């Protein structure tokens, strides 16, 4: 069977390691589906869930932010500033962060640095909630 190894690493620890049939990630240029034997590639990642589809039909979702993906023929390595598995996510905190970010977005003008920051934190919160399945 054709598999590709997946590893998700943060500065603090290795978050995820497994074998996949296909890895779906959101790169700087749009969504990417990585199959085994993909051409070697490097791309920054947007704040979004990483979907790891396995052979037994089970899927793993991992919330990733500030990441970069390195692809080799038989291995995908994702380097991220933070990454969490579904069961590690604090749902209440994510909901609170989402509401806070939405409030800031409603208040601030478009050109603000705060606006960008609020947008990023909203993105992070929504990614987390998506992965946690809430």
């Amino acid at each position, binding site marked *: 069977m054709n598999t590709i190894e997946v590893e998700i*690493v*943060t*500065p*603090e*620890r*290795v978050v995820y390691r497994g074998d996949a049939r296909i890895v779906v990630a959101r*790169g*700087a*240029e749009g969504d990417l589906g990585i199959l085994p034997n993909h*051409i*070697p*590639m*490097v*791309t*920054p990642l947007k704040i979004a869930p990483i979907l790891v589809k396995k052979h037994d039909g089970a899927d793993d979702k991992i919330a990733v932010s*500030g990441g*970069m993906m*390195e692809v*080799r*023929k038989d291995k995908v*390595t994702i*380097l991220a*500033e*933070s990454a969490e598995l579904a069961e590690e996510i604090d749902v209440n905190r994510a909901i609170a962060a989402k509401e806070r970010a939405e409030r800031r977005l409603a208040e601030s003008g478009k050109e603000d640095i705060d606006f960008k920051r609020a947008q990023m934190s909203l993105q992070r919160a929504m990614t987390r909630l998506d992965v946690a399945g809430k």
Partner: protein
Amino acid sequence: MAGGLREIKARIKSVQNTRQITKAMKMVDAAKLRRAQERAEAARPYAEKMREVVMSIAAGTSGAKHPMLDSRPVKRTGYVVITSDRGLAGGYNANVLRMVSRTIAERHKSQDEYTIFVLGRKGRDFFKKRNYPISEEFVNMSDSPTFASIRNVARGAVQMFADGGIDELYLVYNKFVSAIQQEPTELRLLPLADVEKVEGTPTYDFEPSADEVLADLLPKYAETLIFSALLDAKASEHGARMTAMGNATDNATDMIERYTLFYNRARQAAITQEIAEIVGGASALE
């Protein structure tokens, strides 16, 4: 003589208390050292992978350019100095701070030529007291610092380089050699000059482009290096404190031994004198 006895006894008691504390601190730091080493170990894959990718891009044939890879004339230098929040760690902080102030005295004529990013209260107090220019400081770090917690300082330093506020960036910290040996080390962080091709890395495709990937990656790489150094320094700190407290405990044990000997001698002398007095008194009655 009886007064002297009581004094010695109090001394013994006090040194015993001190020994109890230093012994406990030694054991606590031994445990923390092990944890700090594990964390430094856990952080290694990230830093190594990062390095591998950066090197393969920078050394690749794609001819990618980035200001962080090029040396430019140095008008102002930044120093990231890692110290601890708490003392009682032997020469841990003093070694690093001495190294920094000596280097600065050698290299720079005026305060406009350098700036300091300091981590740890001991370093902050040292530089503040002596009026060194501090750009950014970070105190009250936990024993197991997270990447997020030091990101402001790391990003600040890297950003200042990118904006042209400084033209090179050095990192000064205690490198962990072993539990009993730490080495104050100075490392040039930016520009990243020592680019060499790592064997066996494939030639990558870049999306959107090599330059853009590099622009995204290099600041992160520099931040990662600072974080790795911090984890290393933490391990060094606990090692240094463990050794210092071990020595303190040994010294206290020696002291207690010596005082106990004094005490027994004084007690013996007092008894002998008393007997002599009684005998003297008895013979006077005969």
